[in-house]
């Protein structure tokens, strides 16, 4: 009975991409260092981290452009070690789009079917279909050089999707787009992923993008994953100082500060929107002085120095703001103070 349950469990638990103690070292540089990772089928998974954190190398390991120096990678249950990229049913949307400049848009999109030997008429209609999916119908005759950045990116997406990949990898695909276009593409990518049910793995250094688009986020730092979780978990309960710092603009409080204000002597994070500014009456809250204020549209941000620490506070627009240099008191609920495991 136990066995039967285990086998059904393992059927349901098929993992799209699994890393087991995967390392990729370049000489003495540990680009990826002993990473364990499970990406579920149909999931929108974001790899978030600063440049050089190993997130792109992880993506290239899944695509097959890099081979792990240690550990093993499985894609939908199949060993991927030593399998070249052209034998993986995984497609990539490159950061620079990597469209073939000597082919027109239709031939670019039809490239995958073409090298797999699909007939001319059939691959042309598949490519047209993919172009319709990314809202570029009728663009087949143009050259990549004649398209805008946003259009190139859609062509790159169509060129990958036409192959019906098991996993779609996206390497900072929105990095080169301007803000408005980026927001549109974020929504489109999200709805496309829902409609197609393909596993998306998305590399980005933009925490806002990762949090708003992904089902789960892995935060990378120095070749290791520091935390994996849903955007809410990562945002509200960062496990370490690095995660709290990198994801959003949380205030990171050192142990002695926390102890001074009645907590355990541990690193803690405190969200800027959880702090309330009082009028500075003695004996209440934490006393501080206002360093600067900036207008952010829907909110205001106030920087306050308290006990040698600079704290960011976000308040809704419309609330009265203290003047620069004014003495204020800061208040927060003890439950909003999130204790962390350590600096990393």
């Amino acid at each position, binding site marked *: 009975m136990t066995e039967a349950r285990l086998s059904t469990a393992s059927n349901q638990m098929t993992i799209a991409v699994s890393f087991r103690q995967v390392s990729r070292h370049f000489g003495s540089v540990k680009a990826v260092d002993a990473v364990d990772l499970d990406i579920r089928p149909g999931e929108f998974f974001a790899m978030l981290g600063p440049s050089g954190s190993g997130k792109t190398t992880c993506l290239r390991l899944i695509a097959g452009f890099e081979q792990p120096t240690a550990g093993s990678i499985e894609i939908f249950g199949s060993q991927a070690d030593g399998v070249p990229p*052209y034998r993986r049913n*995984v*497609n990539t949307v*490159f*950061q*620079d789009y990597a469209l*073939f400049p*000597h082919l027109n848009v239709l031939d670019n999109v039809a490239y995958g079917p*073409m090298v797999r030997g699909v007939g001319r008429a059939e691959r042309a209609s598949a490519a047209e279909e993919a172009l319709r999916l990314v809202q570029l119908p009728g663009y087949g005759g143009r050259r990549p050089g004649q398209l805008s950045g946003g259009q190139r990116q859609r062509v790159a997406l169509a060129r990958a999707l036409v*192959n019906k990949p098991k996993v779609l990898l996206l390497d900072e695909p929105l990095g080169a787009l301007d803000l408005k276009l980026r927001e549109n593409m974020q929504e489109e990518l999200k709805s496309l992923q829902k409609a197609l049910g393909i596993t998306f793995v998305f590399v980005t250094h933009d925490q806002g993008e990762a949090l708003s688009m992904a089902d789960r986020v892995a935060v990378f730092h120095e070749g290791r994953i520091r935390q994996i979780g849903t955007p809410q978990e990562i945002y509200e309960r960062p496990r370490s100082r690095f995660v709290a710092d990198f994801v959003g603009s949380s205030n990171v409080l050192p142990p002695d500060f926390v102890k001074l204000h009645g907590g355990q002597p541990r690193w803690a994070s405190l969200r800027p929107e959880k702090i309330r500014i009082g009028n500075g009456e003695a004996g209440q809250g934490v006393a501080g002085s206002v360093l600067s204020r900036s207008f952010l549209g829907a909110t205001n941000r106030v920087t306050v120095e308290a006990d040698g620490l600079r704290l960011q506070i976000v308040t809704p627009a419309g609330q009265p703001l203290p003047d620069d240099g004014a003495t204020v008191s800061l208040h927060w609920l003890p439950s909003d103070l999130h204790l962390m495991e350590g600096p990393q």
Partner: protein
Amino acid sequence: MSAEAMLRPAPAVAILPSRGGIVGALSDLFWRKPGLLLFLMLAPPVLWLGIVYLGSLLALLLQSFFSIDEFSGLINRELTLKTYGELFLPANLDIIIRTVTMAAIVTIASAIIAFPIAYYAARYARGKWKALFYLGIMLPLWSSYLVKIYAWKLILAKEGILTWLFEKLHLMWLIDAWLSIPVVGGNSLSVSATGTFIVFVYVWLPFMVLPIQAALERVPGSLIEASSDLGASPAQTFRNVLFPLALPGVVAGSIFTFSLTLGDYIIPQIIGTSRLFIGQAVYAHQGTAGNIPLAAAFTVVPIVVMGFYLWGAKRMGAFDAL
């Protein structure tokens, strides 16, 4: 002085005075009229190209429309196509066909040998290996052309090092078998068309490697990865992405190897059979024979051949990726 004081603008002066002198005045003038600077820079080379270069070429072309009086040996300055007609005499046509065939084979062989070298240099060589590559490719160009050709004569001669090597390897029958083939063979490699071919490929190879390397250098690595990612085997990636994008470089290189082979008269003179190439025919006709019109007509042949070659390359889309 504090950093702020250092960086605060000096009072009163927003527009600086002219640097003064003729240099300052010229700088200001050229800045206001960039076209003038361009004109001054381009005028000497355009004059050179226009008058000395194209002018003498046109004078040469004009000569080809003159004819020679067979009895007196004097040049008849009436325009005629008679000299061009002489090109189609069997002996002269033979020279043209031999030269164009040799140029085509040398070009194809150079491209095949040069591509992997250029590919390595563009995609893998970094730092000192790249410097070494350039040195290795350029070094043969620094030594005298004649010395290199005579060195090859020694290598290819019957008593030469190549024969010695093949004898040691007990492979002499290979060379003998090859030399017994008509047209390409001969008494020894140094007096065969094969020898001419080997030396042509050796001497022109740098002119093929460098343009291909420059073309491959401009192909982003992500395109190769994208092709592989989309399911193309390495051979398919080469055929569908790498080669089309490198083709302008291959064509540029082949223009060098093709036209240099068409015009060379020293290599076939020193290494090869006694059968003439276009360059040798030109040399003989303008020198001892004093038949300048026929020499000029022979010179037009490579120009026409190259014209057709470039037209064909363009038709095949060789310049689409430029």
